[in-house]
């Protein structure tokens, strides 16, 4: 029995597509090429098989996703995951929030930050650097985006340099993209 997951969780649900995933044995050469690399290097999921309906877009998107989240230098991987999770929070993408909150927990070995964020959102009692990052990412994810010069100043006051702010903008905006795919082309379900 499957039910739709409607509350934020760090237990990663299953993603049930609303659009028919491509059958791998029906894939064209271009579609197979686009499926060679996967987001975060995971197995070929229903999600990427749905996106494979547009192979030109997918073959640029996957290396872009992996580069924004994992390329060395600049902002730490953990803080990129905060940006991703904050965007998913605003856009109510429960699947993305679960995946990226749990990745943050794995990287840092700390579960308190995400637990506080899931309970109290932007008002969560967390360290000032994480708070400035969350505030920036939440405001950038609004529509229209609300980020102003003052939000940049607040990040600089917490020690983020230009490279780190650019990397945070990329990971947050990337989830403005990912959430709009995952949360509209399918939904999270729990199989009990």
């Amino acid at each position, binding site marked *: 029995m499957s039910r739709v997951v409607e509350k934020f969780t760090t237990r990663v649900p299953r993603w049930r597509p609303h659009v028919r995933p491509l059958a791998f044995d029906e894939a064209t050469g271009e579609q197979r090429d686009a499926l060679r690399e996967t987001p975060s290097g995971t197995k070929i999921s229903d999600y990427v098989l749905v996106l494979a309906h547009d192979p030109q877009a997918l073959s640029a998107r996957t290396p*872009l996703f992996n580069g924004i989240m994992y390329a060395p230098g600049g902002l730490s991987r953990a803080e990129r995951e905060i940006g991703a999770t904050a965007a998913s929070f605003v856009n109510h993408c429960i699947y993305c929030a679960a995946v990226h909150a749990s990745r943050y927990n794995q990287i840092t070995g700390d579960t308190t930050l995400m637990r506080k964020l899931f309970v109290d959102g932007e008002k969560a009692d967390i360290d000032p650097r994480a708070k400035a990052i969350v505030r920036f990412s939440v405001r950038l994810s609004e529509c*229209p985006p609300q980020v102003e010069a003052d939000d940049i100043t607040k990040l600089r006051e917490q020690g983020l340099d*230009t490279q780190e702010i650019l990397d945070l*903008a990329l990971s947050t905006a990337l989830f403005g993209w990912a*959430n709009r795919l995952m949360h509209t082309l399918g939904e999270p379900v729990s199989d009990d």
Partner: protein
Amino acid sequence: MSDANVLEKAGRVPAGGVLREAVDFRARLMELTQESHDAALVPREPGGLSHALRAALAQRIVRICDDPELEHHYAAMAGDADAAGHGMPGSTSDEERTSAILAYVDKVTRTPRDASEADIARLRAAGVGESDVVRLAGLVAFVNYQCRVARVLRLLGEQP
């Protein structure tokens, strides 16, 4: 294909300085962003979404997101092809398929948290095929990413 990098131009990234160095450090990501732009706006296989309609929908999104630099870019891309005025937020269509597409663009741009299976069902019922649903979702999602990065680039350039 566009030769200039649309995002760097819309983000008014200066020719030198700290921001230029940060952007150049992520040069591969800028290239892939440009490839994603071309895949969303001028794909080799446009399916049921013409290049002209895509440019008009992108224009609609960046207007909703209040981005004058990208509005300028997409207005130039749409040219005179957007005779129906789909680039203008709030505009509607009497044609069921176009009307469903515009409703999806508006909702997923403004309040993606409210999107549900019913929105995909409406597209399908209006004759938008499975691949075109994915193409449309990809276009909307990409432009929403692009305008957010452009905004931060402009702020960083003004306050280095």
